[in-house]
């Protein structure tokens, strides 16, 4: 009986891991798709959509550039999504440890996430 529940929890764990794997693959795939689209537009237009030597650097100019379908803005959006993929990795790891009822590691991974958020804030300002 005990053997069976252990087996079941192992199976449940495997399905959690597969779900996490799919989320991560989705995140990376979306970033790659945006990057590829931006690069393709850049090569077709032969221009980034901005004056020479310039590219959008703030969230606002990137978003308004994406709406205007400017290649550099789309490329920067893709890069930003790519930068977020390791953060996504940390977030889903917290979920995985919670599913395993591993409180110790839920705490440790949450600390990592908090440090990351702090460094993001430092980076932005």
């Amino acid at each position, binding site marked *: 009986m005990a053997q069976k529940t252990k087996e079941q929890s192992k199976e449940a764990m495997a399905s959690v891991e597969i779900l996490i794997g799919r989320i991560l693959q989705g995140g990376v795939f979306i970033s*790659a798709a945006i990057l590829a689209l931006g690069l393709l537009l850049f090569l077709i237009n032969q221009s980034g959509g901005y004056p020479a030597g310039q590219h959008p650097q703030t969230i606002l100019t990137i978003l308004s550039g994406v709406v205007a379908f400017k290649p550099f803005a789309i490329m920067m959006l893709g*890069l930003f999504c790519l930068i977020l993929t*390791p953060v996504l990795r*940390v977030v889903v790891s917290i979920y995985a440890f919670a599913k395993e009822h591993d409180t110790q590691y839920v705490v440790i991974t949450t600390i990592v996430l908090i*440090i990351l958020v702090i460094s993001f804030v430092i*980076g932005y300002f």
Partner: protein
Amino acid sequence: MIATALLLILVGLFAGVAGAILGLGGGIIITPVLTLAMGLDIKYAIGASIIAVIATSSGSTVAYLRDEVLNLRIAMFLEIATTVGAIFGALLTGILNPAYLYVLFGLLLLFSCWNMIRKLRMGTELNETVKADKIAEKLNLNGSYFDKAELKTVDYNVKNVPGGFSVMFGAGLASGLLGIGSGAFKVMAMDTVMHMPLKPSSATSNLMMGVTAAASATVYFFNGSILPQIAVPLALGILVGAVIGSRVMQVLPARVIRMIFVPVIFYIGLQMLFKGFGVNI
């Protein structure tokens, strides 16, 4: 324009394969290509290599739906040391003299190189028995993985957790202060200090590198050091390369990976040592 993009994709592909196999960021390949061959300003080269590190890390994490080689607990536990170290490093810029650090870290890498050669000569790749220390057991850091080269499950213990934690802090400090890829130190902390097998060390380093780089990437992103026309084709090449590289890594014998590792570490160590004395090679 198309030729440049294609060249960058190819460089990325190569850097991604190599980075994913060794658990390094690929900065050692990308920075010289960008600065020496393409004449790019070092500021933009650093911005591009930060993106390269993240692409290597993310590409190799998604190569498998369930990555059974990397050790997620070790990664997250040691990540605390690295990220805190990175923030300290960034804050200490201008206070600490980087020359001493270059010498110190260069010597550490050369020591690690010598240690790896010794391991190669003794031929103790997987049959090394390590007595787990109390902290490793308490933190549940010991693990196992299926080695696709040996076709068997390898159970392993780790030891000297405080030592590994300290080296990881140093790795973070180095990446925050000197802006250099700390992948080499991460593999060293796990392989040399904690006596973890090479493949999980490399895979775990790969995951950690991405998280550490993400922590400093926003600074570069918002100060304009990341040029989209350079970073995007590189990142695309690397993503594909890293997927290939992490699949290759799993079937390569650990001994072969170590043989590739030794000259790379030796080169990085020597380069840092010389830099500490003001010589750029």
